[in-house]
């Protein structure tokens, strides 16, 4: 799956956790989940769980801890899904 396609799917996963929806309009790989999207850091685990369910993958704790930006999230998914 192309990174662009994953980003579009991620936008949907992030939607319920992002209070200000306008912030989601212009996200790119450099967008930071907590700093830029103002997502509550406690909800990062929910975003990872939702992502795991969506792609039927497992993101281990160590990989999850490295997720800061949208790009990190795409990396974690792209690593796991078959090409």
């Amino acid at each position, binding site marked *: 799956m192309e990174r662009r396609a994953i980003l579009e799917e991620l936008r949907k996963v992030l939607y*319920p*956790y992002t*209070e200000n929806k306008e912030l989601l309009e212009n996200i790119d790989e450099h967008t930071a989940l907590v700093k830029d999207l103002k997502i*509550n850091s*406690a*909800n990062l*685990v*929910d975003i990872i*769980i939702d992502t*795991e369910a969506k792609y039927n993958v497992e993101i281990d704790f160590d990989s999850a801890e490295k997720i800061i930006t949208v790009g990190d999230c795409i990396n974690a998914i792209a690593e796991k899904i078959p090409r």
Partner: protein
Amino acid sequence: MNRRVVITGLGVVAPNGVGIPAFLHAIRHGVSGIRHDPSYKDLHFNCQVAGMPEFNWERLRGYVSEITYHGLQGHALGYGIMAALDAWTDAGNEIGGREAIWDTGCVFGSSVSECEVVKKIYNRVDAGEAKKLGSRVIEQMMNSSITAYISGRLGLGNRIIATSAACATGTQAILMGYEYIRQGTAQRMVVGSSEHVDPYIFGAFDSMRILSRKFNDTPEKASRPMSETAGGFVPGSGAGALVLEDLDFALGRGARIYAELLGGACNSGGQRNGGSMTAPASPGVIRCITDAVAYSGVDPLTIDLISGHLTATAADTMEIQNWCLALGRNGRNFPPINSLKSMIGHSLSAAGSIESVAAVLQIVHRFIHPNINLDDPNPGILRQIDPDCLPVKAVERELRTVVKANFGFGDVNACLIFSKYN
């Protein structure tokens, strides 16, 4: 300082009406909220009827942030949030200010965590999938979940207390809120309680053989407080909430005042003298009522209505006797008495707050709601009080003082004295 406490806001999620206008219409006209639930038959319950609010979960989107809404599972949390926020806006307040409101607190009660939600945790953990539980479980499992959601949404910064006292929970929570205002700790308190009887709690009560089981085909007749054919209570769910306020504070902001809360009492029979885990001791009940009346400084003869606990079990006759002894009134001299449970069943911890909302509405709109399903009063009750004290149709009447009491497992009692605001 002699502070007076008034009621300025009301909210309710009841089996026979969600929101004050619907609920007011229902209690005026004796509308039952008891329905048959076919799933209870499949579960082999003896009682197959219940009072469930017609709760539109989607409507909660207007009450909490989307982040909170997403993943919210507890029914009692949904009911409680809606009732409390409705009461807050009904009192003329806005939601979502940026600053903490230091002079306003919250006392809100519930009796049990929801087993349906807990079950999902058990299943995940037992399957080795604790990792998938996510961040939203603990906040809904805390005993203080409901107060955390309400106070967070409203920005309340005074005392935030989650309470539990079985069927006396709601009444006790209201009294605690009253006391914080009386003693000057807070200017306003959002008070109430909520309950959701899920199949697991329902099944446990069913097993105690204290639920109504002979009216499964005629659910609206199943809740029969004080009736000769009463055979147990009907479980109900919902929430009630009130905004209590210091009188001067309310006048200062030009608030509409519904009624005054003169005071109350809360005690236990100590599980002595006939009291037990499940039965209230008469000396404790009588003492609770007489203490509430004495504290409030009302003449028992000016009490115009009793809102009883009256669940439709064998305890109803004893309750009437306790009221007679506590107030020193019987026969034709006994005041009218009604049980909201005839229409909505027994919503356990939520009973006290929903019934208190009903008590205030009866004062404001000058009526006594009917006891439905009371075409055959229990002879043991009629030996103590006149049949005219048991209205079966709504009575239009000016009410000066209304007494509301509830009695809970663990032999705990709570009694409130509401009055018309003068």
